[in-house]
């Protein structure tokens, strides 16, 4: 098969030998497991257990919340001791919602029910995949159930199993392929069943000959029609778009995905997890993690999700002079905020740092426009221009130069003679653009709501006026119609009643004037006289004053 060369790329020191020679260490059960709710892209999972609940290994403890989400399961049996904020492996160092389980050491499984995937409706099957907590284990942790949904997109003709593992130091996929190739291929079978791709290719970099051999042997043994291809070792050859180019020669359009050219890419770890879930009924509760760098025994471990990284380091033999932990590789990974953050679905590697292995980055020097970053960029961007715009916060121009095609592989920063942390600038620019778009959406909603409120107030005012008018009209309409005589009779009655009332008033004398001393009587008489006079004056017609 003809291989194609993707643009750019570099050859960093591999450092794979350290951890690839030893077999995968079996899972151990730590005293405490901290399971973050936000381990995948999309909506965080929603806890469905309470503090004090006893949970079994593999029991669902949080359900998928919406379409872009997956469920989470207890990685071991024990008691839920806390549901609250705890530190998680994230570059921000901010805490997030986690379920903490105190393990009982028995590691007792709940009932495991395999799914007969060949005879299950595809939509229901994808629901199972989501409820088994399967998300991409290559690093992006995108819910696998969505990637397995062929509807709404162009037809997929090629399914690629990604065993590139191009980042230095990391060997978890290498060991997984060497030791558990059959399950990986069983998983690929399920994927092919759901997506309906004709071609199945596994791409593995040629620095992993044992893995290539193991995959080929397993494919023959279980009878899966797959091409296992050895690819040249170039970083970032394991990127989705890069491996697609290498194996199929197809270029992913700017701003698009590999599915736009009919190719879907899955990490081998994801395929393995899918097979374990559907064929064996085991949800995603553990993953293979490379523990390497500044440790005594670099090795791959099967690690329960939620295991504190510090405990993992103890197992691998912690050494003097540890300066921190990188989650992921040295190119795309990030420093975790604390040693005891848990291993999550995205943790393919726990890389212990020391001053010798990872000296602090030299201070940033000015960009000299040497453009060494341009030929290494696998996305064919102009990193020096993007840097310029991101630095000046000219986000619009950065987008014009296809900032969002950047895969943050770090090749440009790696070759930069001025040691500029270029990717940090791109990440800053990207998240700033996202934040502004979000703000814009919120402002638009607010405008809409305000306009609707004004409309509503106006409408209510109008409705009230109409209601009052209608009420007045009905009152008038309901009044009985009287003839002339009836009206006259009514008027007469009123007149008579008025006359009676006046007559009664005239006869009544105030009672409080009896038994008064004579001087008071005189005073009252005087006042009455004055009143009478005034009344008389008031009754006289007013004569115009003469000059």
């Amino acid at each position, binding site marked *: 098969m003809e291989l194609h060369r993707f643009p750019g790329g570099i050859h960093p020191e591999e450092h794979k030998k350290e951890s690839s020679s030893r077999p995968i260490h079996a899972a151990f059960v730590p005293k405490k497991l901290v399971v973050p709710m936000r381990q995948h892209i999309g909506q965080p999972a929603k806890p469905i257990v309470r503090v004090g609940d006893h949970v079994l290994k593999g029991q669902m403890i949080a359900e998928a919340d919406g379409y872009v989400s997956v469920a989470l399961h207890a990685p071991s049996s024990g008691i839920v001791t806390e549901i609250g904020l705890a530190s998680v492996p994230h570059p921000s160092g*901010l805490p997030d919602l986690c379920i903490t389980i105190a393990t009982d050491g028995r590691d007792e499984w709940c009932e495991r029910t395999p799914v007969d995937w060949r005879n299950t409706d595809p939509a229901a099957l994808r629901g199972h995949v989501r409820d088994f907590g399967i998300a991409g284990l290559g690093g992006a942790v995108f819910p696998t159930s969505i990637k397995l949904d062929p509807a709404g997109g162009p037809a997929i003709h090629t399914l690629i199993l990604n065993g590139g593992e191009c980042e230095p130091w990391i060997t978890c996929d290498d060991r997984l392929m060497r030791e558990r190739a059959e399950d990986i291929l069983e998983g690929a079978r399920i994927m092919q069943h759901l997506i309906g791709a004709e071609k199945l290719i596994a791409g593995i970099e040629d620095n992993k000959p044992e893995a290539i051999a193991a995959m080929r042997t397993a494919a023959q043994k279980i009878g899966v029609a797959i091409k296992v291809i050895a690819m040249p070792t170039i970083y970032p050859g394991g990127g989705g778009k890069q491996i697609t180019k290498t194996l199929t020669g197809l270029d992913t359009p700017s701003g698009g995905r590999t599915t736009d050219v009919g190719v879907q890419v899955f990490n081998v770890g994801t395929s393995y997890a899918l097979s374990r879930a559907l064929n064996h009924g085991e949800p995603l509760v553990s993953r293979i993690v490379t523990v390497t760098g500044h440790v005594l025994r670099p090795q791959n471990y099967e690690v329960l999700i939620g295991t504190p990284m510090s405990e993992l380091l103890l197992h691998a033999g912690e050494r003097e002079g540890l300066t921190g932990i990188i989650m992921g590789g040295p190119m795309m990974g990030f420093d975790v905020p604390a040693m005891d953050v848990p291993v999550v679905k995205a943790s393919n590697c726990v890389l212990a740092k020391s001053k010798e292995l990872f000296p602090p980055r030299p201070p940033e020097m000015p960009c000299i426009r040497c453009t060494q970053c341009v030929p290494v960029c696998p996305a064919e961007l102009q990193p020096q221009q993007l840097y310029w715009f991101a630095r000046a916060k000219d986000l619009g121009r950065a987008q014009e130069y296809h900032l969002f095609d950047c895969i943050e592989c770090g090749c440009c920063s790696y070759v930069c003679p001025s040691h500029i942390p270029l990717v940090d600038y791109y990440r800053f620019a990207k998240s700033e653009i996202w934040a502004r778009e979000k703000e814009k959406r919120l402002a638009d909603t607010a*405008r809409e709501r305000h306009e609707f409120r004004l409309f509503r107030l106006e409408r209510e005012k109008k409705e009230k006026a109409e209601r009052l008018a209608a009420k007045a009209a009905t009152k008038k309409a309901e009044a009985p119609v009287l003839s002339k005589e009836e009206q006259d009779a009514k008027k007469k009655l009123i007149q008579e009643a008025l006359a009676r009332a006046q007559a009664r008033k005239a006869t009544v004398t105030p009672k409080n004037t009896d038994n008064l001393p004579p001087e008071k009587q005189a005073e009252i008489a005087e006042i009455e006289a004055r009143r009478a006079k005034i009344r008389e004056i008031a009754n006289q017609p007013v004569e115009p004053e003469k000059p």
Partner: protein
Amino acid sequence: MLAAILVMAGIAVVLGAVLGFAALKYKVEGDPMVEKIDAILPQTQCGQCGYPGCRPYAEAIAKGEADINQCPPGGEEGVKKLAELLGVEPKPLDETHGVTKPKSVAFIDENLCIGCTLCIQACPVDAILGAAKQMHTVIASECTGCELCVAPCPVDCISMVPLKEDLASWKWKYPVFELKQVA
């Protein structure tokens, strides 16, 4: 001579008719400038600019009645964008209209709320839920942080809570590196 005058007059009449027709046919509804200004304003609807909402302020700017630096929620950046749009020099925010504060949302202490509905009537975006003599609550996702509900509350049970950064709203920071004193 007469022919020339007639020809010119004829052309003038024809062109006038064309222009008149175009003016009717391609009439622009509303003032497009107001729309552009309104798109920049933060839609807080707080009235700190002295106008009853963002759109009236946008209209006032378009007419030249209001200055561009009267919107504290928009901040310096908003002023800059308006200046760019209108082709004028940006100027510092007019502090008589208030200062830029971190984005907050209103919070009703439900133990104190008496259900008077005054805040509901004050809210410009209908983000407060409740009815007479019933508990009120703020729909945080719709609240613009305008503070208009705070003053009318007779029992002072509304407070403005600044939004905290969490994993969903976190942003990568502008790269900086430490300067070390060497001598």
